[in-house]
């Protein structure tokens, strides 16, 4: 037995314990488990390997109260007011209240529901009993459970919009199943007011045989908001999934992506842009597990840190012994634009099969003087020249993204962030 001295809880831990203790829904058991974990060991610190670069215990300042009513000034209206990214069928949540999108108006071929069912359904995706999974399982109050029916190709994206405001907590849990041969694009959009909000969002996705999906996470939270996000994915054979992550906000952000590649000829691409604002901490942690032969995975992240922010990328690729002919490539490139900027990249390969191609590369650089001088010598002022170089660096991520309209919309979001923060 491990002897442990009882720990002194931080303010955030105490608030979390209090919130978990009040849960009296279908999530009651999960909440009790999460509570016990935090009570005993606290939130993870840098001594926990998975959280080495994101010391949650020290970084999480507080856990605000969940709202008991729709907040007045920053609620459904502000969700409606979000600059549209692209047209699509939208289900919107203001804190945990479903405020936009009638279920009756769902496009043909999409079915599902919104509510407590989301807390107990994962479409069979095993939920890891890790920090984000446990906290969210205990605290989530609602979410969507959706299925794209077999053989259906949705013409427009499904948008899961989410905003929170007024120093509140908002925890959502979504599950989406893509039936055999289904094709669809889903977009998670996360916004918040600039006050200190907390959100956790866990999404569980299953792609059945031959399904093809794009999953976008557009995170543009206010600068004081904390976000713990997790995407758990299971891929069957012949599936094709592109995950695109844009982090362009938040004070403390951790986005996890866990993919189990369980079917042959599955093709996975994870692309991401992390724009790390002043004083913020943005962490993307991915784990890919290849369990069967002949699958392909590519990861490409481009990160820009203009001020005193800190970015983290952890990319783990596990190739199980039967997963011969796995092709997994991972690249993480960072531009640091100031001396105070910081980025840690930790690629990790665990390979038990012998006939695989796996590679990873991480670079950290600042803007090249030669390039800057060349542009300036042509009459482009320094600020514009820098912006041109930063945009070029980031936008390579979208180079062969099929949906050019969506790519263009995300590039616009990136450019407006860079205009303000770059």
């Amino acid at each position, binding site marked *: 037995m491990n002897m442990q001295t009882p720990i002194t809880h931080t303010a955030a831990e105490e608030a979390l314990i209090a919130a978990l203790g009040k849960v009296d829904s279908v999530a009651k058991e999960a909440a009790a488990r999460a509570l016990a974990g935090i009570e005993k060991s606290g939130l993870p610190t840098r001594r926990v390997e998975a959280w080495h670069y994101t010391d949650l215990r020290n970084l999480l300042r507080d856990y605000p109260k969940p709202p008991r009513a729709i907040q007045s000034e920053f609620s459904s209206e502000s969700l409606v007011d979000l600059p549209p990214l692209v047209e699509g069928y939208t289900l919107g949540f203001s804190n945990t209240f479903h405020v936009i999108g009638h279920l009756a108006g769902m496009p043909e071929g999409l079915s599902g529901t919104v509510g407590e069912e989301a807390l107990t359904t994962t479409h069979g995706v095993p939920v890891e009993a890790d920090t984000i999974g446990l906290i969210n399982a205990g605290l989530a109050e609602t979410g969507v459970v959706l299925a794209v029916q077999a053989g259906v190709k949705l013409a427009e994206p499904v948008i899961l919009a989410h905003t929170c405001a007024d120093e509140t907590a908002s925890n959502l849990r979504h599950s989406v199943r893509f039936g055999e041969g289904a094709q669809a694009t889903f977009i998670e959009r996360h916004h918040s007011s600039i006050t200190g909000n907390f959100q956790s969002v866990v999404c569980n996705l299953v792609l059945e045989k031959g399904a093809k999906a794009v999953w976008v996470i557009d995170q543009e939270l206010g600068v004081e908001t904390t976000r713990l996000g997790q995407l758990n994915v299971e891929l069957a054979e012949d599936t094709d999934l592109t995950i695109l992550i844009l982090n362009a906000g938040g004070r403390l952000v951790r986005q996890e992506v866990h993919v189990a590649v369980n079917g042959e000829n599955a093709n996975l691409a994870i692309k991401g842009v992390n724009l790390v604002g002043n004083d913020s901490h943005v962490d993307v942690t991915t784990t890919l597990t290849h369990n069967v032969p002949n699958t392909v995975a590519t990861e490409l992240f481009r990160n820009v840190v203009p001020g005193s922010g800190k970015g983290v990328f952890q990319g783990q690729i596990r190739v199980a012994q039967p997963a011969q002919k796995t092709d997994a490539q991972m690249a993480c490139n960072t531009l640091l634009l100031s001396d105070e900027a910081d980025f840690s990249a930790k690629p990790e390969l665990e390979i038990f099969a012998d006939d695989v191609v796996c590679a990873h590369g991480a670079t950290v650089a600042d803007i090249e003087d030669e390039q800057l001088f*060349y542009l300036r*010598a*042509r009459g482009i002022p320094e600020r514009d020249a820098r912006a041109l170089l930063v945009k070029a660096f980031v936008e390579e991520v979208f180079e062969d993204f099929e949906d050019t309209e969506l790519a263009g919309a995300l590039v616009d979001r990136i450019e407006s962030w860079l205009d303000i923060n770059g």
Partner: protein
Amino acid sequence: MIEIRNLHVKIADTDTMILNGVDLTVKAGEVAAIMGPNGSGKSTLSYVMAGKEDYEVTEGDILLNGESILEMEPDERAAAGLFLAFQYPVEIPGVPTMNFLKAAMNSQRKARGQDEFTTPEFIKKVKDAAGRLGISMDMLKRSLNTGFSGGEKKRAEILQMSLLEPKFCVMDETDSGLDIDALKVVSDGVNALRSPERAFLVITHYQRLLEHIVPDSVHVLYKGRIIQSGGKELALQLEEQGYADIIAKAA
């Protein structure tokens, strides 16, 4: 047009002197050539004119139309009409050449208080100029200089020079890496730009380029100093006899 007075230059973060008192005047309408062995400071001179920060002027001045440019930023010098065709044009992945051209042309116009070009105006200008230089529009969709062959890079420099319509053009070894046909195309491009209002400083190793772009004056730079000046026949003499004689005489 341009007046270089007693220019002394060192590398900014060391005490190594590269230019040791260069004096050179190029009048409007004139084409001046600078020749000299490797390492004599030709590229340094061109970079200092363009405003590169790696170098520090310790003495002397550079005047463009009577006004010192030493305190001006590189982009301000460009907007004032100075253009440097680089010996080694820089590759910029991710910036399509067309986007770059538009940014450069409109930045300069904005700095001069002129209206920016509309997209159709801009595209027409680029198409015309590219056509004359044998540059395909496909090439201009690619990232700036990225993966361009040596010849393509030099043509792209001349394209930029044609589009930006500078008053004073410095060309640093534009002939290196060009085959005879490309040399002809590039020289024709430059000759088309010759006018009474424009001046050129052509840096080269070889007489070959000067057969196509015939200079009004030729200057020999050696160890950071102009050691001899003359007419176009000086280039011929150097071609035949090499630098040894002139260097020996200057010493």
